[in-house]
């Protein structure tokens, strides 16, 4: 019998072409297979310090993110962060962190396949998001680096503002909602197509 060589399928793989054909002003691409770990640790605790030392970053405060390095940290809650790293690092990273945490009370959970990441950029991003997201994306209210776990249309998402005035954002969406969100996004763009989609 034959076993196929492993080939992964990301939640939005089937949408690659359609997402590539959005109107000018909106570019959307899936960043599949990123390493994603949920880190739960009390801020300011020895464990938190150990984690920060290991990652070489300061864990961001409420509604913030640390996007500079290879390992990015998204604030998810008062003692919760989502660590995002390039594909395939979940075991190494989790191992390093657990070692650093030692016997302290802090936990690391691999959730890499729980969400996929959609990168949006262009002048239309803010307008399109305004069709389904109640968050005020004015840069004076939601500056670059903001990380908001909220609702877009009817899908739970984590929204990371990458560039000024939300001209570039990350949308982290649960895998089972990805198709719905893509459908919604494409439909939201009808407005800007200049002709019947």
């Amino acid at each position, binding site marked *: 019998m034959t076993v196929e060589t492993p080939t992964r399928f990301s939640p939005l793989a089937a949408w690659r072409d359609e997402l590539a054909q959005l109107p000018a002003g909106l570019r959307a691409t899936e960043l599949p297979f990123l390493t994603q770990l949920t880190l739960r640790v009390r801020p300011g605790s020895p464990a938190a310090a150990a984690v920060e030392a290991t990652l070489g970053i300061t864990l961001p405060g409420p509604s913030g993110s640390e996007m500079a390095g290879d390992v990015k940290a998204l604030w998810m*809650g008062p003692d919760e962060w989502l660590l995002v790293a390039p594909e395939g690092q979940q075991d190494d990273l989790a191992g390093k962190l657990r070692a650093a945490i030692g016997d302290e009370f802090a936990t690391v959970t691999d959730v890499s396949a729980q969400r996929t990441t959609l990168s949006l950029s262009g002048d239309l991003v803010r307008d399109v998001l305004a069709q389904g997201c109640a968050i005020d994306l004015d840069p*004076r209210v939601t500056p670059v680096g903001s990380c908001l776990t*909220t609702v877009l249309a009817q899908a739970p998402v984590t929204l990371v503002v990458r560039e000024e005035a939300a001209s570039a954002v990350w949308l982290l969406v649960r895998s089972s909602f990805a198709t719905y969100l893509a459908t919604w996004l494409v439909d939201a763009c009808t407005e800007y197509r200049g002709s019947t989609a």
Partner: protein
Amino acid sequence: MQLIACPWCGQREETEFHYGGQAHIAYPEDPYALDDEQWAQYVFFRDNPKGPFAERWVHSAGCRRWFNALRDTVTHEFLAVYTGATPPSTTSTAPAAPQRKGQEASR
């Protein structure tokens, strides 16, 4: 639709939250020391005041944290949002929520 000041995430729309009913209803120290009527009080009976009400909310679509609020059930106005065991004095109308950068209080 109300804006609710999550103590952690700041003002968000009501639809991001789930309602938890009356706050400060502790699980009985020893349920078996209670007779059925006292137990029923814990299980089923809640205050239902017209006016300020200490209640619980959870920011389900956000940080998933439970918190308490003092809310006027007539005006729907949130008089206070807090995480402690007792509400601040009802005169305080400032949400305990840290506002995000640049965010202005809405009342």
